[in-house]
């Protein structure tokens, strides 16, 4: 019967099967080539331009050799930290609500909103932060940058929180309620605590994601060639600094862009790999 469908002789069918299956393996190999190329270039070009000054100095004006990205490293940490201060409570709270009222119309609407927010291009989030924060404050600021990053972070945290809470066995909740614990205590000290590792994983993956964002910072946090940690002033970030230096025509700046990209990639991949290693690959970031 299968012969009638596929016609040819058994030998040719087997040969075709083997060829096609080898092709899938080949496709996988080709797909992974860029990963090794990017990491390889980062290591060779980045390490060569990395030195102590990179971590301790601020950028030098054009024409002067040396300088570093200390302000941008601090800026990235500040932006991500403030984004977490906004994004983590909102994300986890919303995730709790959605998980606790699975059939409720409001909860369904919130889940849907979080889902489609995952698909909003990050540059659009930047425009929103510009309209909501930059315009009223009459200037670019670290606050606007973290606001944009928080908005990108919230749906990621909400979806993982919900998924993780759904994995907690119902018996655990019932046991806590049967012991007389109020529902809010049950949710916080029993269900959420059980799901805490998973939720923390989701938060760390979200941090890795926003630490690498450039587009939403371009016209919110803007960038800064000097030291600044003020929340109302423009602030430097690794990503924007790498972008600015990479498209500049100066060889010394381009060299530093590679160093910055190496440091940025190290931060992001350390978070990603660390979390996956700790959770043995169970964690996934929602798309």
């Amino acid at each position, binding site marked *: 019967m299968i012969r009638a469908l596929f016609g040819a002789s058994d030998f040719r069918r087997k040969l075709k099967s083997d060829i096609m299956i080898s092709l899938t393996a080949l496709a996988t190999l080709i797909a992974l080539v860029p990963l090794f190329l990017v990491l390889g270039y980062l290591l060779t070009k980045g390490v060569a331009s990395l030195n102590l000054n990179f971590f301790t100095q601020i950028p030098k004006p054009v024409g002067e050799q040396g300088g570093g990205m200390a302000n941008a490293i601090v800026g990235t940490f500040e932006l991500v930290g403030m984004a977490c201060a906004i994004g983590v409570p909102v994300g986890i709270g919303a995730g709790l609500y959605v998980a606790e009222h699975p059939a409720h119309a409001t909860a369904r609407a919130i889940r849907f909103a979080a889902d489609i927010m995952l*698909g*909003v291009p990050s540059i659009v989030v930047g425009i929103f932060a510009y309209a909501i924060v930059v315009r009223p404050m009459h200037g670019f600021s670290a606050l606007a940058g973290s606001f944009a990053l928080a908005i990108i972070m919230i749906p990621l945290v909400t979806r993982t929180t919900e998924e993780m809470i759904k994995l907690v066995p119902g018996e655990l909740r019932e046991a806590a309620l049967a012991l007389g614990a109020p529902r809010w205590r049950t949710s916080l000290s029993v269900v959420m605590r059980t799901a805490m590792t998973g939720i923390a994983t989701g938060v760390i993956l979200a941090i890795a994601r926003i630490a690498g964002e450039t587009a939403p910072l371009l016209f919110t946090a803007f960038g800064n060639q000097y030291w600044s940690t003020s929340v109302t002033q423009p602030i430097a970030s690794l990503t924007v600094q790498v972008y600015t230096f990479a498209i500049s025509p100066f060889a010394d700046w381009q060299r530093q862009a590679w160093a910055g990209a190496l440091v*940025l990639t190290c931060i992001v991949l350390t978070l990603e790999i660390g979390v996956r290693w700790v959770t043995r690959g169970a964690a996934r970031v929602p798309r």
Partner: protein
Amino acid sequence: MANFYEAAADKPAAEGRESWRGRFGVQLFGDRLFALITLILGLVILSILFGLTLALVFGSTASIHKFGLGFVVSTDWDPVNDQFGALPFIYGTAISSVIALTIAVPLSLGAALCLSETAPEWLSRRIGFLVELLAAIPSVVYGLWGIFVLGPWLRDHVEPVLGAYLGFLPLFKGPKVSVGMLAAGVLLAIMVLPYIASVCTDVFRAVPRTQREAALALGATRWEMLQMAVLPYGRSGIIGAIILGLGRALGETIAVAMVIGNSSEIAASLFKPSSTLASVIANEFAEATSRLYLSSLMELGLVLLVLGLLLNVAARVLVLGAIRGAAGEGR
């Protein structure tokens, strides 16, 4: 807890009941407060989404009033004379995404088949991990690599070949440069590949075992089994994955802005510089001088948002349908 039981044992029945009510009152208050707080945090998400849409619509009113529907068909992007049209960027976005998908779809389908079907479990786990890493690398890093490695490589090794053999097509005519539509498309392909591959892997894994076994029992070879059982079963999921990848490609900003060359002209040749909706916003937003200029850029953002939302909803419906539908039939 211990206190509660002791207290209840010491008290007469009526009083005990009274304290129960008291406890319930407190509990209800706590529960209500908790539900209210989480509800408010949840509503924050809804309001962000509404706020985002409203902010973009209000921000682009000036441009919508001035240009109307002509905005999306006009090719004139001239900030000096306050004339704005979105067509060059819509064209750039469409063509760069098409190049990206043309390269990424066959490769990611192959990789997904390999991960879910043909590779042994231990190997597939490790490769899956590497594919996730590919998705984790920040886009500015891809952009940097694109400027200094991929672009020059395409200019020196790929574009001459395309020009020599397919140069009769307008697509592959013109001088070879390292920044342009082709470089952006190839870089986008690399960036969307892990998304499409990982969703397709999930879709293929959700195909019921019985389907595969039935095909094999009929005497199909492994490839015929994939052709007869896995691919048709996962069709809507595959389409969903591709749409999800398209959504990523449309919205990708910084890497594209770095390699596409930023020209607001429509050129037939893929070697020429171009711009996408996202890349022109990234390049010009902070420097937009007039109100109408800013408003037009916001309208580009609005176009991008609407496209992103539509694609995302469609993709999610297709992928979830494929995975849940398969799960519903039992594995």
